[in-house]
């Protein structure tokens, strides 16, 4: 027996996840800028203040460091907060708290205190918001021991990653891509949870692995469809979790396809794509039939003008061209 798939947007999936979390645990509350009366900068929390009241959907002043730090303290003292940072670009104002407290205190206290905190933030470019609202900083955060970094690229992950993140005893950062909020998709009614440990193969293929996450996932899937028309079977690996990286799934895929392209909306230098490439060089060197390729954001502050913004980001056409060059070298 199979029930009808449930159609919803990524935004609705995020909202439903928060609604579930608030209903399930009285220790959970949401705080952040404009999450209440305004309904969230990207409308994720819209309407929730009417359902749960201003104590559990708590508007904060523009004080990222203090309200993120308050989330840390509240988590250490028994609550299960969800902190929303309007965009990851603003999270730099709270970096001290995330790095020096959330990621550090459990180890530095000899395991006496955990920080079971979830921080959600919007990430990425594609809506002409210019450089101070368009960067992808999840790769930076993936550098830090002591936190987990999630990047939901599907409706299903947007719907269920939060539950797993709240159940985790560690600080978990969830990066929701601004372009994906309006994406619509079907949810399998038989699925009510997802793990936050493993990467997932979203499309199988034998010729090349496209390793990616977030809003580069739909681009990779589009590229794979186009490549299939030209006789190249690309396998699409959705990282889902940027820290800790699921090496096993990546290595297993690349072990079969023997070729790998990493697509990452972050800058190339010192990036998560660089880390994955290094791990492949360390562990899969003799399995590879071709050099590991990377398609990343160009190393510029993301500009406003549409054509420049588009040129700054990984494009489906780049993925297709790179895959063809790898699989069928001239």
């Amino acid at each position, binding site marked *: 027996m199979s029930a009808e798939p449930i159609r919803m947007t990524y935004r609705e999936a995020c909202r439903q996840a928060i609604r579930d979390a608030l209903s399930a645990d009285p*220790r959970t509350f949401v705080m952040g800028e404009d999450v209440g009366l305004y309904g969230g900068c990207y409308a994720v929390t819209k309407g929730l203040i009417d359902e749960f009241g201003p104590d559990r959907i708590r508007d*904060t*002043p523009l*004080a990222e*460091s*203090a*309200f*993120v*730090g*308050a*989330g*840390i*303290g*509240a*988590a*250490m*003292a*028994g*609550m299960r*907060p969800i902190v929303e940072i309007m965009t990851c670009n603003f999270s730099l104002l709270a970096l*001290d*708290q995330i790095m*020096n*407290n959330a990621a550090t*205190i*459990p*180890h*530095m*206290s*000899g*395991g*006496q*205190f*955990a920080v*079971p905190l979830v921080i959600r933030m919007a990430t990425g470019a594609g809506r002409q918001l210019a450089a101070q609202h368009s960067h992808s900083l999840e790769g930076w955060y993936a550098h830090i*021991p*002591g936190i*987990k970094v999630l990047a939901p690229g599907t409706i299903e992950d947007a719907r269920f990653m939060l539950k797993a993140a709240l159940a985790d*005893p*560690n600080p978990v950062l969830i990066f929701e891509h601004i372009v994906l909020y309006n994406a619509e998709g079907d949810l399998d009614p038989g699925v009510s949870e997802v793990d936050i440990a493993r990467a997932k193969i979203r499309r199988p293929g034998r010729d090349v692995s496209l390793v990616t996450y977030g809003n580069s996932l739909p681009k990779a899937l589009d590229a794979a469809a186009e490549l299939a028309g030209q006789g190249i079977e690309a396998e699409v690996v959705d990282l889902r979790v940027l820290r*800790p990286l699921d090496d096993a799934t990546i290595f297993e895929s690349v072990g079969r396809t023997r070729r790998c392209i990493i697509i990452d909306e972050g800058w190339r230098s010192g990036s998560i794509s660089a880390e994955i490439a290094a791990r492949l060089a360390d562990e899969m060197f003799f399995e590879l039939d071709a050099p590991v390729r990377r398609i990343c954001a160009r190393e510029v502050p993301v500009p406003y003008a549409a054509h420049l913004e588009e040129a700054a980001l990984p494009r489906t056409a780049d993925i297709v061209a790179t895959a063809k060059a790898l699989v069928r070298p001239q």
Partner: protein
Amino acid sequence: MSDKVHLDHAHGLTLLREMERIRRFEAKCVELYQAQKIRGFLHLYDGEEAVAVGVMQALEERDAVVATYRDHGHALARGVPMGPLMAEMLGKVEGCSRGRGGSMHFFDAASRFYGGNAIVGGGLPVAVGIAMADKALRDGAVTACFFGEGAAGEGEFHESMNLAEIWKLPVLFVCENNLYAMGVPLEISEAQTDVFRKAEGYRMPGERIDGMDPVQVEAAARRAVASIRAGNGPYFLECRTYRFRAHSMFDAQLYRTREEIALWKERDPIARLRRWLLETHMISDHEIAELEAAIAAEIDEAVAFAEAGTLEDVADLERFVLMDEVPQ
């Protein structure tokens, strides 16, 4: 608990003992530092003991404490046992942070001691969050948050003060104003040098007190805690104090004069209280000798505990980077 201080025989002895424990613990730490058994930074609380000891008298078991990197005094006055503190100084696994934190990062979940924080201002947002949780889960509990006047330069100070007040959270902000942020004098770093007046900007009650007098500190802390427990929101205390020794072990003290240090030493909170207790015949020389002997024995025991402690297995280096579960 009353918000008045009854300075009877027993209480006078308690205040003296608690301050002496800190002073002598740290004197031993300096000795062990010179013997190279303690390394890294060592920030002494010498001269400021009346602040931690006075404030802790107003706290109960249910309350929480957030301290700075100059945290020896706060941990001792809060009642964290001396043995694990000394073991932490020596980097032993029996230490209060398993040797991972050292001097600047004492932690003790049992006494709700949420750590020495070595990012100036970094503890204030955490204290606000603890108070949020307490307001929901532990009615009446207060979080005492200690910081130096240097923290007033940080954005986190202002953000946290504002949050605590708009949400009427049970936070006792305790500014230990020792007049120098490392070596930068207050008058060249702050436009408003009356730090307690910054509380006015957040419509928070605040007062300045003599941080060299444990009785005055205790009285103010009791007033503040009573107000906080009554649901009036946060409270701010500026304790004017002075550190008698260098900022850390690597400080030539070029920024202040010997004369100034000598002047403040005349107001030594320990010598002053001892003198007063003797002059008023509240305690005897014999009792002081007994008290000092007991502290010496406690320190010997702590050092023996620390020396006998073990080094954590390097195989456990990454343990607790990610937690398997939330403790308790």
